[in-house]
C-alpha cells in the first residue's frame, strides 16, 4: 500500500471552499436571472396596462370657480381658455366676468341704444350673438377675446365687441320671436320667425359680401324668402347650420323641415318627424355641422345626421342614434367645438355625452339650477349660469372621448355613413375628422393573414416533415434539415421586400398560371405515385427505399412548367373581361375577377402574402414537426414494419399518433409566428383594413398597424393608446390560442404516451 494511503488525510471528506462558493454564486446568479425575467415580464404588462387603462376611464369633472352677476343671462359665452365668460340679457351692455379675480367688466353696444331685443341666439363657433328686434329687424354682434400680456409678464384676456349690420325683414309682421345665424365666411344665412300663433311667419335671409376695391367689402342682403307656407305647422325652433348652408325649422306638430340655402337659392329638401310627432324642445348642430341633437318635451334625445341612403341618393337627415332619456325640465345643451361631445341635461342633472360612440362620458348633479350652459372651445371647461346670474365653472378632464369598448369592438354609426360599420381610419385630413378606431378590421386582418399563411405553409411543412423523417435517406436528410433551418433565419424584411417588389408584380400577371400549377403539381405527384405502385416489383426494387423521389421530381418539374405555360392560355379561355362600354373582350384575370365576383383585385394580396409567409412559417413548422416524428421510438416503427406495414402505414398508424403532440406544438409555433409577423405583412399586404376573405386583396393586421402608425401617433393620445390596445388584443389572441392548444396538446400526449 502506498504511503499516503496508510495514514489517510482527515480532510478528505470535506468539500473545498471554492466549490461551495462557486455553487452559492451560481445558485444566486440563476435565481437573479429568473426573478429578473419575471419582473421584466410584469414590467411590460405594467407599462402596456398604464397606456391602455386610461382609454376606458370616464370623464372627470370638478368645480373650479364661481362668479355672481346680477344679469339674468339669455346668452352665455366664454373665451377659449374658459377664463372670462360673458353674460348678455338683451340690452346695451355685455357683462364680462373674470373667474380668476371675480372682477366684472361691462362693455357697451352703442348701436343697440334704444332698441328692444325680442329674440337672441348664440353661435359659439363664430362667437356671434344673433339678435331679433321688436320692430322686425335682425342683426348681430361678435364677441371676441384676445390674450395679451401686461408689462409685468402676466397674461390677460381682453374681450371686444363688434357690431354687424341690421337687416329689415320685409315679410311677416310683429316682433322677431326667434332668430339664428349661420356663417360660412363667404356666405351667411339668417333665419327668423316673426310673431306668434297663427299669424307667425318664418323668413330665410341669404347674405353675401359685396366685394369692393378698397376695404373688406360690404355685407348685403341677397334674397329674403318667406318659407311659412312650406312649413308643416307653426315654427317652434329655427336653426341655421354653422356653415350657413342649411336651415332647419322645428314645427309644433313635431315635423322638422330642412331647407337648403346656396347660390341656387333657398329650397326645401326634406321634412322629417323625430319623436313620432312630439315637437322638439331643443335642436342644435353638433361640431361638424351635419348632425342634429334634438330633445323632446318628455326628455327623449335623438341624433339625426345627413347621409346618403344609397349610392346615388341625396344627403338627407335620418336618425342615427338615441340617447338615454334626460327627464323632465328645461333642456340644457351645449356642443363642444373640438369633438362630438356635448353637455346636456334637464334640471340639475347634467351629463356629458359623446355622439359617435353614443356613450355617456360623465353624469352629475349640480348645486344650482342651471338656466344656460356653455362649453369652452378647447372642451376643457364648461360654465353654467342660473337664472339669477350665479355662474359656476367646471373643469373637464376627458382625454379620450372617442374611446370605449363599443368604439373599439362594436359597430359604430359614424357621421355621414349610411349604417353602423367596423372601421379603422385613425387619422384624417381635416380638423373636424373623426377618428374611426374599430379594432375589429385589424383583428380580422390578423386572422386573415394568418389563415392564408397557414393554408399555404401547413400542408407543405407537414408533408415535408413526414417525408424527411420517415422516407428520406439519412445522407439527404443531413442536408435538408440545416437548409430549412437557414431558411427560417432569413430576415422577414428581406422576405417582405421580395414579396412586395418582386413576387407581387410577377404573380399579378400570372394568376391563371398559379392556379394551373396548384392543380397540376399535386395531381401529377399522385398520378406518378399511383403509376409507380403499378410497376412490377422487379423494377421498383431497383430503387433503394427513399430514393423514389428521383423518379417523381422530373414529373413535378414538368407539371410546374406546364402549369406556368398553360396560364396565358387559360386566361384566354376562361378569364375574359368584357368592357361594359365598348363590349371589347380582354383576356385579363385582373379585370375578370372584379367583374365576376364584385370584389377587388390588388397587386399586393393574400396570395402573395401566403407564398412569402410560407418562407417564414414553413421552416418553423418543418423543423419542430420533423424532430417530433424522428423522435418516435425505433422500437415502435420496427414493430410495425415487422408486422408487414408499409412505410406509409408505419407513418400513419404509429409515427403520427405518437408524434401528434409534437406536431401540434409545431403548428402552434407556426401560428404564433404568422400572427406576430410584421414586416412581411407591412410590405406585402397593402395594409388596407378591409373585412373580406377575398384572396386577391390584402388586409391590415394588428402587428402591421402598430408598426405603421406608432411613429405618427402623439404620445398619450387616444390613437397612441389604441395602438397599445391593439398590442393587448394581439397578446390576448395568441394567449388564448396557445392555452387552448396547450390543453389539446396535453390530451394528445396523454392519449399517445408510451410507457
Amino acid at each position, binding site marked *: 500500500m502506498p504511503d499516503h494511503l496508510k495514514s489517510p488525510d482527515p480532510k478528505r471528506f470535506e468539500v473545498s471552499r471554492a466549490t461551495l462558493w462557486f455553487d452559492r454564486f451560481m445558485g444566486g446568479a440563476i435565481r437573479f436571472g429568473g426573478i429578473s425575467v419575471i419582473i421584466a415580464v410584469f414590467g411590460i404588462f405594467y407599462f402596456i396596462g398604464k397606456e391602455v387603462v386610461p382609454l376606458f376611464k370616464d370623464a372627470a369633472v370638478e368645480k373650479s370657480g364661481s362668479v355672481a352677476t346680477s344679469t339674468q343671462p339669455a346668452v352665455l359665452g366664454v373665451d377659449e381658455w374658459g377664463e372670462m365668460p360673458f353674460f348678455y340679457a338683451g340690452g346695451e351692455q355685455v357683462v364680462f366676468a373674470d373667474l380668476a379675480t371675480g372682477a366684472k367688466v361691462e362693455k357697451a353696444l352703442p348701436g343697440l341704444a334704444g332698441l328692444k331685443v325680442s329674440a337672441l341666439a348664440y353661435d359659439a363657433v363664430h362667437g356671434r350673438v344673433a339678435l331679433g328686434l321688436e320692430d322686425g329687424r335682425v342683426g348681430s354682434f361678435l364677441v371676441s377675446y384676445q390674450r395679451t400680456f401686461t408689462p409685468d409678464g402676466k397674461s390677460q384676456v381682453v374681450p371686444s365687441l363688434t357690431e354687424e349690420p341690421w337687416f329689415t325683414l320685409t315679410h311677416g309682421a310683429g316682433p322677431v320671436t326667434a332668430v339664428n345665424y349661420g356663417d360660412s365666411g363667404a356666405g351667411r344665412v339668417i333665419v327668423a320667425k316673426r310673431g306668434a300663433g297663427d299669424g307667425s311667419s318664418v323668413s330665410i335671409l341669404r347674405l353675401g359680401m359685396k366685394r369692393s376695391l378698397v376695404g373688406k367689402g360690404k355685407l348685403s342682403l341677397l334674397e329674403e324668402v318667406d318659407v311659412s307656407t312650406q312649413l308643416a305647422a307653426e315654427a317652434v325652433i329655427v336653426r341655421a347650420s354653422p356653415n350657413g348652408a342649411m336651415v332647419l325649422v322645428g314645427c309644433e306638430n313635431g315635423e322638422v323641415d330642412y331647407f337648403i340655402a346656396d347660390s341656387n337659392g333657398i329650397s326645401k329638401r326634406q321634412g322629417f318627424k323625430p319623436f313620432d310627432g312630439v315637437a322638439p324642445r331643443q335642436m342644435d348642430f353638433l361640431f361638424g355641422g351635419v348632425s342634429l341633437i334634438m330633445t323632446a318635451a318628455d326628455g327623449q334625445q335623438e341624433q339625426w345626421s345627413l347621409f346618403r341612403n344609397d349610392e346615388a341618393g341625396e344627403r338627407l337627415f335620418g336618425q342615427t342614434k338615441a340617447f338615454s332619456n334626460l327627464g323632465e325640465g328645461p333642456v340644457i345643451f351645449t356642443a363642444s367645438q373640438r369633438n362630438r361631445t356635448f353637455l346636456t341635461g334637464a334640471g340639475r342633472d347634467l351629463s356629458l355625452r359623446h355622439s359617435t360612440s353614443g356613450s355617456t362620458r360623465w353624469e352629475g348633479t349640480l348645486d344650482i339650477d342651471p338656466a344656460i350652459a356653455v362649453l369652452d372651445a378647447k372642451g376643457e371647461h364648461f360654465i353654467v349660469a342660473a337664472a339669477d346670474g350665479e355662474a359656476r365653472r367646471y373643469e373637464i378632464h376627458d382625454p379620450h372621448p372617442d374611446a370605449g369598448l363599443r368604439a373599439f369592438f362594436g359597430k359604430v354609426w359614424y357621421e355621414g355613413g349610411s349604417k353602423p360599420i367596423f372601421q379603422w381610419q385613425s387619422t384624417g385630413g381635416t380638423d373636424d375628422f373623426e377618428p374611426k378606431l374599430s379594432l375589429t378590421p385589424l383583428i380580422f386582418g390578423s386572422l386573415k393573414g394568418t389563415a392564408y399563411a397557414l393554408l399555404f405553409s401547413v400542408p407543405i411543412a407537414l408533408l415535408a416533415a413526414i417525408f424527411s423523417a420517415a422516407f428520406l435517406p439519412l445522407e439527404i436528410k443531413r442536408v435538408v434539415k440545416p437548409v430549412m433551418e437557414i431558411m427560417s433565419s432569413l430576415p422577414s424584411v428581406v422576405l417582405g421586400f421580395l414579396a412586395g417588389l418582386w413576387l407581387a408584380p410577377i404573380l399579378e400577371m400570372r394568376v391563371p398560371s398559379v392556379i394551373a400549377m396548384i392543380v397540376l403539381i399535386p395531381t401529377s405527384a399522385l398520378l406518378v405515385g399511383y403509376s409507380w405502385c403499378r410497376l412490377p*416489383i422487379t423494377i421498383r*426494387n431497383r430503387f433503394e*427505399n427513399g430514393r423514389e423521389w428521383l423518379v417523381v421530381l422530373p414529373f413535378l418539374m414538368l407539371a410546374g412548367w406546364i402549369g406556368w405555360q398553360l396560364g396565358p392560355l387559360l386566361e384566354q379561355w376562361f378569364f375574359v373581361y368584357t368592357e361594359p362600354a365598348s363590349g371589347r373582350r380582354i383576356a385579363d384575370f385582373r379585370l375578370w375577377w372584379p367583374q365576376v365576383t364584385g370584389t377587388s383585385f390588388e397587386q399586393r394580396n393574400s396570395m402573395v402574402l401566403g407564398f412569402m409567409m410560407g418562407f417564414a412559417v414553413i421552416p418553423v413548422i418543418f423543423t419542430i414537426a420533423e424532430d417530433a416524428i424522428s423522435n418516435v421510438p425505433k422500437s415502435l*416503427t420496427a414493430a*410495425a*414494419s415487422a*408486422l*408487414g*406495414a408499409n412505410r406509409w402505414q408505419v407513418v400513419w*398508424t404509429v409515427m403520427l399518433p405518437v408524434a401528434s403532440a409534437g406536431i401540434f406544438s409545431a403548428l402552434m409555433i407556426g401560428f404564433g409566428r404568422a400572427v406576430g409577423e410584421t414586416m412581411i405583412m407591412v410590405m406585402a399586404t397593402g395594409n388596407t383594413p378591409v373585412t373580406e376573405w377575398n384572396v386577391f386583396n390584402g388586409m391590415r393586421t394588428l402587428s402591421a398597424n402598430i408598426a405603421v402608425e406608432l411613429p405618427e401617433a402623439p404620445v398619450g393620445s387616444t390613437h397612441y393608446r389604441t395602438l397599445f390596445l391593439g398590442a393587448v388584443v394581439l397578446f390576448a389572441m395568441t394567449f388564448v390560442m396557445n392555452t387552448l392548444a396547450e390543453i389539446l396538446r396535453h390530451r394528445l400526449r396523454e392519449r399517445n404516451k408510451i410507457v
Partner: protein
Amino acid sequence: MMTSHPLSRPDFIQVDHFSFHYGEKQAIFDIDMNIPEHQVTALIGPSGCGKSTLLRNLNRMNDLIDGVRHEGDIRIGGISLYDPSVEVISLRKRVGMVFQKYNPFAKSIYENVIFSLRVAGRSKKSELDATVEWALKSAALWDEVKDRLHDSAFGLSGGQQQRLCIARAIANQPEILLMDEPCAALDPLATLKIEELILELKHQFTIVIVTHNMEQATRCSDRTAFLYMGKLVEFGHTMQIFENPKHAETEGYISGRFS
C-alpha cells in the same frame, strides 16, 4: 426435447455464406447454416457476436438501417430473400418478430393484436374477433385479458405486454417467428411463462430465438448455434452443444468463462 415435426423440412431456412456490413464495420462473416422447420433454434454468443444481426436479416429488418450491405444469400423455403421479385412487406408477413423490449402500440389490446390484419386491409369483424381470441389464447394471455380487450395495452404488466407482442406477431400466422431476447426485460416468473409458450408455439411456427440465458437455450431450444466475433463457431443439437461442445470457445462461453 429433440422431437421433430413429421413434415418439417430440415433446411427450411438456408443461410448461405452470408456476410453483413454496417457501413465499414463487418458484423457477420460468412455464416453458413440450415435452420430446420418447426423447431426452436437458439442463437447464443457474447454481446456483439452478430446473433441479433443475423436474426434481423431473416426478415430484412436491417434494410431499415442506412448504409448496410451483404454478401451471400439467405433462402426461406428455397426462395432468396434478395430476389428482385421479393416484396419486403410480404416477406415480413411470413416472418414475424418479437423484440427484446416489449413494444406494444399506444392502442387497445385488441387493436395491437390485429395490427397486421389492419395494415393488410382486412376489416371483417368476425375474422378480427376470431383472430384476437386465437392469438391471445396461443400466447396464453386470453384468460387474463378477455374482459378488457379494449383497454390500453399499457395497463398490462411487463410479462403480459411481451406475450401481447407475441400474440401480435403470430396473429397474421407467419411461418417463422423471430425472437430477439424476448425475456431480457422480464422477471423469472414471466420468463417461465414465455418459455412454456415457446414450446407450445413451435408446433405451429419455426422459431429462431436469440438469448443470453444458457438455461433458457437448454430448456426450450432444439438446436443451438454459437456465434463468436461474427462467425458461426458451432451449430448442432442443443444437448450436444451444451453437453459435449466441440470447440474450446463454445465450452468457455457456456461454462461462463467469458461472456
